[in-house]
């Protein structure tokens, strides 16, 4: 069985077919031979019985009239059949009346006792007995005996013929099965080969579908699988490429980011350093100017004093500008810890700090939320906005209203004043560095306040813009994202209430 298992499909099929054929043929041959054997025996027995009967018929008279010679003559006709070795007629007493013996045998072939009518195979002979009946009366018995050689000879001849036929049939079966096994094995082999090809990576390879049977179905399924495989591998390849590209892009981005960051840092550092370094000589200039103003006050005329004052004020302005730059540069460079900031408290503080003049009222419209933020930064924003509002107030009765609403996941803060207002064409410009609307001589302003506010707000993912009508006032609006600012809101609320 194991041998069978490890053969190729082709050999398996041929072996199966051959085995089946040979078994069937052998079975048929055996049955045939057995049947022939049986038929042969019957035929021989019948033939011999016929001969016995003929003899019986022919020696009725000679037996009746006691003429053994005549019987002998009748019996002698048996010599024609060479296989008959003995023929005898017995009287009713069972004594041999007359006998025939084939030339080469002796008396010993006689049967030892007379039996009833019929035939027996035994002792290597076929023996037939037939009673001789005359007028309904048994007058004797005929016995004919033949050896079985011809029967055996015939049998052997038959076996030989059948063997030859068997052999030829087997050869034919082999030839035919060799050809026909292809029907099964060829598609299987092709399928196996295709599997190997695909296994080696040729995903576009397909099997030819020839038949509508299970193999055809298998081939079809195989092709579908290969199709899927191809699609999958292609998409995997694509994905890989995408991932690679993304990685590369990310890398580039990271690099760029790094570059930007480092550039930014450089710039910031630079700004810091420069402003710091600029401040030093500035301090010197101020000191010297101050000294000159004081020490040489009596040597200076009115013009001179004015000019010295102007000089000092210019120095102060420059100092402020540099401070502004420094402030700006600090944002994003120095990172504070985020804390829960109650804006109500903070705004109150800021209002204190900016110290509005009596004619300006700063009000908080509604409850301000508690946000998680860098305290200083948010303070700066409010501080800058409020100080701007105060600085540019042109009305006798000024009010600044601070409010807050929730919008789309953002806190939207408003700082609205009834100041001079700003022309629309300046809406963008004022957020730029060092931009002032009023000339610096009128209002002392560094021009960095809004820039700083913008930087802070945008750093946290918010927006800052303004609405204004000239002559009526301006409303500055900025948004801060809720998620970043509201993480522990509940806890803080609880602590406030508690």
């Amino acid at each position, binding site marked *: 069985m194991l041998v069978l298992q490890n053969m190729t499909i082709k050999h398996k099929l041929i072996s199966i077919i051959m085995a089946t054929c040979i078994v069937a043929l052998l079975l048929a041959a055996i049955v045939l031979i057995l049947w022939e054997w049986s038929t042969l025996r019957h035929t021989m027995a019948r033939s011999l019985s016929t001969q016995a009967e003929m003899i019986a018929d022919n020696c009725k*008279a000679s037996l009746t*009239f006691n003429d053994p010679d005549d019987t002998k003559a009748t019996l002698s006709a048996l010599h024609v059949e060479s296989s008959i070795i003995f023929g005898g007629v017995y009287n009713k007493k069972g004594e041999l009346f007359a006998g025939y013996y084939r030339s080469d045998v002796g008396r010993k072939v006689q049967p030892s006792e007379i039996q009833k009518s019929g035939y027996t195979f035994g002792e290597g002979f076929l023996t037939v007995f037939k009673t001789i009946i005359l007028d309904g009366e048994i007058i004797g018995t005929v016995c004919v005996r033949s050896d079985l050689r011809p029967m055996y000879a015939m049998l052997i001849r038959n076996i030989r013929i059948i063997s030859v036929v068997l052999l030829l049939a087997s050869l034919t079966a082999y030839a035919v099965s060799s050809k026909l096994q292809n029907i099964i094995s060829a598609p299987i082999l092709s399928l196996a080969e295709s599997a190997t090809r695909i296994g080696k990576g040729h995903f576009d390879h397909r099997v030819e579908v020839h038949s509508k049977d299970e193999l055809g179905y298998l081939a079809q399924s195989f092709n579908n699988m290969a199709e899927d495989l191809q699609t999958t591998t292609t998409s995997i390849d694509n994905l890989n490429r995408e991932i690679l590209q993304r990685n590369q892009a990310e890398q580039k981005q990271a690099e760029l980011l790094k570059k930007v960051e480092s550039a930014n840092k450089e710039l910031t550092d630079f700004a810091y350093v420069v402003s710091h370094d600029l401040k030093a000589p500035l301090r010197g200039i101020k000191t010297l100017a101050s000294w000159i103003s004081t020490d040489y006050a009596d040597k200076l005329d009115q013009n001179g004093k004015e000019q010295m004052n102007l000089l000092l004020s210019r120095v102060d302005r420059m100092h402020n500008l540099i401070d502004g730059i420094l402030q700006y540069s600090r944002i994003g460079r120095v990172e504070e810890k985020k804390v829960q900031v109650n804006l109500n408290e903070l705004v109150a503080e800021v209002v204190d700090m900016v110290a509005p003049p009596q004619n300006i009222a700063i009000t908080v419209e509604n409850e301000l939320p508690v946000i998680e933020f860098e305290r200083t930064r948010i303070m700066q924003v409010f501080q800058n906005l409020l100080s701007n509002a105060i600085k540019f107030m042109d009305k006798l009765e000024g009010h600044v209203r601070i409010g807050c609403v929730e919008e789309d996941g953002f806190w939207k803060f408003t700082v609205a004043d009834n100041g001079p207002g700003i022309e629309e064409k300046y809406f963008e410009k004022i957020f730029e560095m060092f931009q002032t609307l009023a000339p610096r001589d009128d209002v002392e302003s560094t021009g960095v306040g809004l820039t700083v506010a913008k930087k802070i707000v945008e750093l946290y993912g918010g927006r800052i813009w303004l609405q204004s009508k000239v002559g009526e006032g301006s409303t500055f609006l900025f948004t801060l994202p809720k998620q970043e600012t509201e993480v522990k809101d509940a806890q803080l609320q609880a602590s406030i209430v508690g």
Partner: protein
Amino acid sequence: MIVLVPVLLVAPCVVQGADDNAAEREYQIKAAFIYNFIKFVDWPKEKVAESNEPAIIGIVGKDPFGNAFAPVKDKEDKDRKVLIKRFKPIEELKKSGEKDKSLLEREIDSLRKCHLLFICSSEEKSINEIINLVKDYSVLTIGDMQGFLESGGIINFITEEKKVRFEINVTAAKRAKLKIRSQLLRLAKRVVGDDGGKSNKDG
């Protein structure tokens, strides 16, 4: 006047010594043969009216058989029934016939009705006469004397080497419209025919 004679013969058994034993045996065999002849001879249809009518064996003359036909009686339970009829010697018959013509006629009638008729050697001189009497009546005439066949008898017993044999006259048989089977003819020591051909078994 047909006298049905019972088959069991009540003839006196005459003891005459060893010779008589041999003679007895001889006639026993002959009796058997006569009976067996029936099986190998075909009578014409007119003679065999019905199949179960017994075959009549007539013996005319001085009966040498004694009770040799006794075994034949045993065979009666088979299909073939046999009747043995004895007739007085012809001369006697003729004499009694003079007195009673009808008796003679009856006897002759009975003679003619026989299927087989054994003519004893006592009737040697009257063979021709007897044979003439029955010649058209399909009677198988049997004898055991010399020249029986030449006189027109059909089967004649002869003894050869202490064995009972017989010879057959086929022409006589044909004349009597009897068909003798070849198996029986074969066994005849001598077959005689009118065509002059004498086929002798030993010749």
